[in-house]
């Protein structure tokens, strides 16, 4: 348990004046604190095992107060386990954790929260149909009374948001906010209402497009300058140089090294994460070949207000990128091509034949596969076995007269496992037992078993670690070489630049540009992505 100082009733003011037990500091804010307490979080020789698996081995982590401290490492390196220990979700086996100098052992999340730690998960815990203020006070809407005083609620929420300089109206419906602003609502709730001084953010940028990340970063920096300590987990290495004050690299349950983002390079980080220097992250682009067969042609496609007059062509053996902000119509276009949503007008040709695609089953029959953006909800069936997932698109090959043929099924599953180098325990384990990267490989492999000609990949490397990313890129290049036409939707511009032959950029449901070869660069993509102000 933390000492009394950390448990004292709060006065509603943020970060200041707490955590500094000798109250001798005259200065305000983060600067003064740094002198009084050396570390906001001081983890020493912490270990944690699950059964026989040692998830954390003598981990040491020191986070200075009022800084943004980034944690990087491949999936399963131990970052999340350590954060769950700090958040009181898991108990450590041994070692010590000090929060602002006080030795703590958290038994449950509430204890961690009382010590001033908040964890913001990637999946936000907000009720989409309630307002910002209602969400912030959800645990105590009546403020102790029986009835809700909406005006007071909105005023208090507005004060809280303004206090940190966040520009959000408390009466806005949360579902109408972009994901970045929803994150900010959750952060504000943690900071002001639960009075937290240490913020743990688990891959917040994975669900954001680039401009939204700018919003998040600006706000995080502002919080840091007000003295809040932020632990930031991310797979996107390039962004660490923009935001982190210090970087700690995890590998195999241990902290490998601390790096200073001012002096290190992305290659240094990667080298420490994987224990070796990596070559290029991307494989050489496959030669599109002499053939210019068009495998997919979309002509003047329009759907309501989300897609307007979209046309594109995809050739055999080509990797085509689709760039744009979240909500620009990229995923909506993929959904229309795959028959999930109806189109109002326009045509889709596959291998030169115009097709009406009313539902995914049609799309599959015509040779289109889709690896959807949400792996857990749309891509894989987590409780079912790996081999059942692999053969779902291909049940005809593994059955006869409606009866499943276990031998044929094993053959198909083994083939997928070998060709995509899926790392797994047993093919009859549930899909949920795999890491994110390997789950994604299963979802890709499922479509290769369906033997199509067009593969649409929507955010294929979201939430996947660097090693698995490289493998997925190699797989994509390989599939293009085999003759697939591949459409890659991504919010990571580097991914599109490194992987694609051509890139279309979308904004507000329209295609705003087509880039190829050396023209594909961040500046141009960005310029074409930004919505133009509409004239009324």
């Amino acid at each position, binding site marked *: 348990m933390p000492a009394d100082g950390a448990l004292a009733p709060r006065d509603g003011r943020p970060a200041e004046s707490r955590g500094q037990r000798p109250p001798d500091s005259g200065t305000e804010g983060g600067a003064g604190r740094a002198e009084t307490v050396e570390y906001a979080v001081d983890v020493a020789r912490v270990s944690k095992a699950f059964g026989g698996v040692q998830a954390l081995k003598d981990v040491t982590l020191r986070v200075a107060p009022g800084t943004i401290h980034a944690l990087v490492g491949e999936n399963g390196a131990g970052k999340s386990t350590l954060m769950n220990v700090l958040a009181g979700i898991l108990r450590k086996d041994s070692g010590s954790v000090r929060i602002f100098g006080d030795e703590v052992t958290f038994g449950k999340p509430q204890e961690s929260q009382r010590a001033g730690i908040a964890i913001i998960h990637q999946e936000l815990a907000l009720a989409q149909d309630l307002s910002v203020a209602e969400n912030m006070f959800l645990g105590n809407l009546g403020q102790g009374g029986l009835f809700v005083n909406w005006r007071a609620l909105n005023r208090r929420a507005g004060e809280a948001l303004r206090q940190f300089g966040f520009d959000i109206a408390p009466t806005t419906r949360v579902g109408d906010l972009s994901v970045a602003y929803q994150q900010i609502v959750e952060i504000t709730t943690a900071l002001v209402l639960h009075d937290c001084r240490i913020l743990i953010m688990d891959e917040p940028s994975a669900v954001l497009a680039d401009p939204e990340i700018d919003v998040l970063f600006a706000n995080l920096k502002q919080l840091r300058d007000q003295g809040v300590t932020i632990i930031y987990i991310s797979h996107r290495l390039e962004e660490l140089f923009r935001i982190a004050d210090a970087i700690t690299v995890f590998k195999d349950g241990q902290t490998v090294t601390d790096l200073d983002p001012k002096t290190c390079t992305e290659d240094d980080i990667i080298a420490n994460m994987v224990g070796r220097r990596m070559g290029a992250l991307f494989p050489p682009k496959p030669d599109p070949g002499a053939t210019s067969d068009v495998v997919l042609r979309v002509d003047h496609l329009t759907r309501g207000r989300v897609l307007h007059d979209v046309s594109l062509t995809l050739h055999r053996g080509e990797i085509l990128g689709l760039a744009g902000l979240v909500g620009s119509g990229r995923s909506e276009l993929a959904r229309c091509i795959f028959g999930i949503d109806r189109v109002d007008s326009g045509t889709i040709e596959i291998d030169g034949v115009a097709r009406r695609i009313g539902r995914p089953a049609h799309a599959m029959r015509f040779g289109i596969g889709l690896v959807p953006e949400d792996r857990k909800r*749309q891509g894989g069936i*987590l409780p079912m076995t790996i081999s059942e997932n692999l053969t779902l698109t291909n049940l005809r090959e593994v059955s006869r007269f409606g009866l*499943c043929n276990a031998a044929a099924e094993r053959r198909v599953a083994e083939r997928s496992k070998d060709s995509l180098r899926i790392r797994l325990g047993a093919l009859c384990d549930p899909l949920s037992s795999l890491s994110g990267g390997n789950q994604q490989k299963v979802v890709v492999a499922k479509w290769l078993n369906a033997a199509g000609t067009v593969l649409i990949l929507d955010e294929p490397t979201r939430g996947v670690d660097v090693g698995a990313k490289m493998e997925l890129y190699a797989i994509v290049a390989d599939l293009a070489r085999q003759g697939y036409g591949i459409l890659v939707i991504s919010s990571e511009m580097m991914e599109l630049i490194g992987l694609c032959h051509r890139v279309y950029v979308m904004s507000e449901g329209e295609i705003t540009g087509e880039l190829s070869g050396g023209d594909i660069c961040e500046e141009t993509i960005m310029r074409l992505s930004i919505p133009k102000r509409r004239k009324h």
Partner: protein
Amino acid sequence: MPGLKMKSSALLRLALSQSTLVFFVVMLIAAYFLSDRFFTPDNVTNILRQSVPLGVVSIGLLYVILTGGIDLSVGSVMALVSVVVALTLPDLGLTGAIIVSLAVGTCAGLVSGSLVAYFGIAPFIATLAIMTIARGVALIVSRGQPIFVDNDTFMSFGSSSFLGVPSLFLVLIGVTLLAALLYRQTVFGRLVIAVGSNEVATRFAGINIPTIKVAVYALSGFTCAIAGIISATRTGVGSPILAIGFELDAIAAVVVGGASLAGGRGTVINTLIGALILSIISNLMNLMDIPGYHQQVVKGVIIVLAVLMESAKRRLIDR
């Protein structure tokens, strides 16, 4: 003694994974001590006969529940079928009457399934509507009167035995085996689980979801028809007020068998055991002369216990 500890925890795991069976065995042992009439040949035969309609209907209902749906119309469809079989026996003969009856039950399921799959009506509402419609039609065609069965072959099947086992129970065994085969070995069974586990991902894998949904409701209607016919052979009447509230017993049997109403989880064998458990509870309470009103309370309590045990088990396994 780490070795011993390992063994006992492995044993615990086994018991947990087969908790429905454990519950069943514990109940049999309890029944042995609670009533000396329980394990008499007559009583056992009686239980086997009584459990048939519930067992058959629960197994059909399991398929609906596996997709994340529900079928409230099972009792009414049973009643309708019992009336239909009694009415058609004199004119169509045994085979004809049975075929027509099975068709009527299956059609009721097809209608429910179509409402759910093609018109997007919530399963609860769609099958609630079919429940009252089927009951109404049963009352109309029977003019509200029980229809007496006039066919000796048909009647004798209800009380006949084969190698000492009631023929009706053999029907239940047959239905169970076929349903288990469908569940484990066929593409259809696989897709039912897939729909219940993650409907979106299954649709995105190019599977035609409506076909699967219509099929499970039709299957449920088919098993209701079997149960309706069986009731008619046992009692000798087709009754429009047969099996009122039966849907609740059937849902209880599926849930006691460890299936999840959210879909995706549940097995045929455990559903059969669930139905046997409920039948035995009724029988035991009758033997112990517990009044009917009290029986309802006890039954409810036991259902809650079984479900609590199931969720406790989930937590233990997931940990």
